[in-house]
């Protein structure tokens, strides 16, 4: 299998999923990315097996009289890819783990 590098937006989306956002519109809200970026990226990540998708249980949707939503979750392979992406795009890492040079200038002093 060829090694796939994640684009920054794909990594952000993957990180949003890893943080518990599981639906397309939730990811849009969390990342601020438009649907034209989020959905194609989700399809690509699913094709690369970095995420898996399944349908929400029927009874939950039925209670609200709406069709079931499709939710996504990060796979093991996706988790590894996200780990690599975080190393590459250090802005994705939590602030305390960033090395000095990548901290904003006002924090570096």
């Amino acid at each position, binding site marked *: 299998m060829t090694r796939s590098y994640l684009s920054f937006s794909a990594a952000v989306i993957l990180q949003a999923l890893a943080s518990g956002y599981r639906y397309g519109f939730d990811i849009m809200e969390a990342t601020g990315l438009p649907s034209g970026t989020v959905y194609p990226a989700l*399809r690509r990540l699913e094709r690369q097996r970095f995420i898996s998708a399944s349908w929400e249980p029927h009874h939950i949707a039925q209670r609200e009289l709406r069709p*079931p*939503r499709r939710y996504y979750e990060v796979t093991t392979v996706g988790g590894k890819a996200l780990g690599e992406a975080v190393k590459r795009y250090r802005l994705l890492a939590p602030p305390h783990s960033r090395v000095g040079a990548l901290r904003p200038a006002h924090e570096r002093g």
Partner: protein
Amino acid sequence: VKPHLQVIAVLSRIVPRHARADWRQEWEAELTYYELHHERVRAGGHASLTLFTRSLGAVVDALCLHATLYERMWRKGNHMSRPQRALSLMIYALATAGLAGINLVWTVDDTPLIAAMQEHAALSIFWHLVAWGAIVAFGAAAVAGLPVLGVIAARAWRDRRWDTLGRLAVPPLTATLVLIWLTTAFAWSGSHWMPLPWDIAGDWTAPANWPSTQTRWLLGGVTSGLLVTAIAASAVSLTGAIARSELPMRLVAFLKGAAAALAGAIGLMAIAVAAWGILANDYASAALHSRLGGALGSTILVSWVASSTLFLAATAFAVRGAVMSAAPFVRD
């Protein structure tokens, strides 16, 4: 039905069939959930507008699904190597540029724009650039493509691979068919009128010995269909033959240079055609706008826009082919 759900229903028609049901359900569910749970939408007066704009985001998603499908067909279905894909793109570029060029030449032929070109050097220079671009483009394609196609034909003949030979025979066969059609229709009209799409109707009076306007529309329409089909079928058949054959690597080495020359020449033609049209608008505006010299009774302006668009598409194919051929030649 709410407008945002109507948008999704309409857009679902352009989603590839195998993914359509899931795609529609996902978008409908997301929008309905958003409508039910998003406080801002429920409280605000612009709820419908917000949902409608959100639903429009599905256009990109639907189109990307198509792009993905074609990409997979292209990469996996055809099992083509980089040189095969590069050569195929060169063929598509040449076919598209050929169609654009034929349309442009026949559109301008026998119009006051010829006189305008004699008067204004700049107009003439850009016209000549198009012609030189065409010579370089066809030359580059012939130098790189013909030997490769020759070897493919020879190997197919040796191995009795009739499907490949059949595909290689499509361009000469379709060209012959178009010629037979043109000469037959010309003879039928008493050798007075050639059924060309550019000679159907216009702001001129047809000679008395030409067929009726209705007949000209019918026969000219057939020629248009035949011409486009012949060029498209030839390009698709050649690509099919290339996909089924192992390319001679020694000849493939020529591809890099030829693909770059083709991309440069077609790009030059696209720029020159655009510049020529802009200058024609300045120097011979009346002829460009009102003269019905284009294909199927259109104005010269419309025909020029069509040719310019086709040249742009041809440039995109050619540049993609050049980029692909510049990469190392390994089977991927």
